[in-house]
């Protein structure tokens, strides 16, 4: 055995994977006894590995265990996030992101956000270019009395034209959204008492969540609001692509209150109206629908989840022109049907 081979056996010999009775181990020991360099190296190896193994992690102390258990129990007492809700959105009611559940949806929304952000950036550039003249010509405006829900800092004509960060003060909205959540929760609970649903055997535990979450999801596009109604939970998500979208949020809240306080049929009607709006936006991207395309006004998810009877939809004739169009359009509609 040469020195290189001997040194390569330091690790298995120290680990114990080199069988003490094997001929290889005998050769190893024989070489060590006759080679001072390898003997020194073996001594150093054992010294280093002994120190390394001596630093191995042991059992945690009682204080460490209690600290971890306390943190876990604190986290377990927080309300669980809804099916479509981000935890931060649940807590604060406002999230500047396109909240989607899977990567495919995120990519589609990201593409729409990029398109909207490009438009917003072009508008901002035009605004900055026109600002000095408009500001010089316009008379002084009285300060607005509306609360500072969200505002983008006004660009100064003398400052370099860098994109200003979106500054959002969510505090004025927090109370509104909290009140909104409480109202929806009360209505949902009252609605469930009026019309109990059959529970699944697997979820029949008294402390289990309701068997079928009733969720009405609206398609979030830039500047739109995603409303996620689960049993006893509410989450609101604002997908904002530009400061214009953020400032418009104040205008979104009142109809949202009306929407959520409406009966289920009204919710469906407004949801379908929202779908029409989304469809119009999608048509801008994909072109208009063919004339023979049937209206897909009643996605089954909303009606099924809300316990409403399905509407009659005409059976599509096979091979028609609209079908290929719809197959191209439908993937662009995230959360279509509202079922999650």
């Amino acid at each position, binding site marked *: 055995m040469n020195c290189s081979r001997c040194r390569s056996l330091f690790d298995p010999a120290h680990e114990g994977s080199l069988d003490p009775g094997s001929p290889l181990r005998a050769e190893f020991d024989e070489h060590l006894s006759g080679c001072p360099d390898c003997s020194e190296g073996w001594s150093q190896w054992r010294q280093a590995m002994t*120190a390394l193994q001596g630093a*191995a*992690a042991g059992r945690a102390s009682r204080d460490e265990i209690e*600290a*971890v*258990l306390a*943190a876990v129990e604190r986290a377990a007492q927080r309300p669980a996030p809804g099916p479509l809700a981000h935890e931060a959105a649940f807590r604060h009611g406002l999230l500047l992101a396109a909240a989607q559940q899977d990567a495919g949806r995120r990519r589609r929304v990201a593409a729409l956000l990029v398109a909207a952000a490009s438009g917003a950036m072009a508008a901002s550039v035009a605004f900055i270019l026109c600002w000095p003249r408009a500001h010089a010509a316009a008379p002084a405006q009285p300060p607005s009395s509306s609360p500072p829900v969200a505002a983008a800092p006004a660009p100064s004509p003398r400052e370099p034209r860098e994109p200003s960060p979106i500054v959002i003060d969510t505090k004025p909205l927090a109370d509104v959204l909290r009140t909104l959540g409480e109202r929806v929760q009360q209505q949902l609970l009252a609605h469930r008492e009026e019309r109990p649903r059959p529970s699944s055997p697997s979820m029949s535990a008294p402390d*289990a969540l309701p068997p079928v979450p009733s969720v009405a999801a609206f398609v979030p596009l830039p500047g739109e609001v995603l409303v996620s109604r689960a049993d006893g939970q509410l989450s609101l998500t604002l997908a904002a692509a530009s400061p214009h979208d953020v400032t418009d949020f104040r205008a979104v809240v009142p109809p949202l209150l009306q929407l959520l306080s409406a009966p289920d049929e009204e919710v469906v009607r407004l949801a379908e109206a929202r779908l029409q709006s989304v469809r119009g936006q999608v048509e801008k991207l994909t072109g208009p629908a063919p004339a023979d395309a049937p209206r897909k006004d009643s996605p089954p998810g909303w009606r099924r989840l809300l316990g409403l009877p399905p509407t009659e939809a005409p059976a599509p004739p096979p091979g028609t022109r609209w079908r290929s169009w719809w197959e191209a359009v439908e993937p662009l509609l995230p959360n279509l049907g509202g079922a999650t």
Partner: protein
Amino acid sequence: MRSAEADARPGTRAHPPSFPAGEAARSETPKVPVNDEEAQASDQALALQAAAGGREAFAELVARHTRGLHCVLHAALRDRHRSEDLTQEVWIKVFGALPRYRPAGSFRSWLYSIALNHLRDALRSGRARQPPPTPDVEGLVDEEARQPAERRDEVRSVRLVVAGLDEPFRTALTLVDLAGLSYAEAAATSGCSLGTVKSRVHRARLAFRDAWLARPAPRPPARSSPDWRPSP
């Protein structure tokens, strides 16, 4: 390697186990495992008990693996406080994912997969800073506070040297030599083959040996009372 943490995502999770303070769960004192196989089986049994709401079982898992998790996370972050926070966050994730734990594989592989995925997420999202050049190892020896000063110095030196190793050898070394995982468990945790892990651990040990032998001489132990007098 995202499977373990994907299971732990809040949006998809089942109900985390609650600790109803059931006396039955509290009364089942876990046995101390004797060898590695017994430890694995014991970990799996504890995980199942914890998933059913056994607080003592979960506490025993925490007792067994918290310092190992901390070693691995600290070696990557080199920040004692942040690694402590991340260790607690990992346990919170594990607690939420326990109902979906299946005792088909090693519990430690599952646990450390969640830890490494959480570490990557934290580094990617900026919640955990990039490691500073000088590791903060002072706090790590608090846990060995009852040990002699020479022993604490040696532990501090070992962790300083380990934190200075390069990735992915550092993680392989910490998983196997500090956290006590087997090669197979480390391979499952890291998502690479058994041979790769063995090679990484061997190279990491060589690097550790070289750095350990080249480290500066340890400081002499501090005296309790100064043997000098200030000049008048």
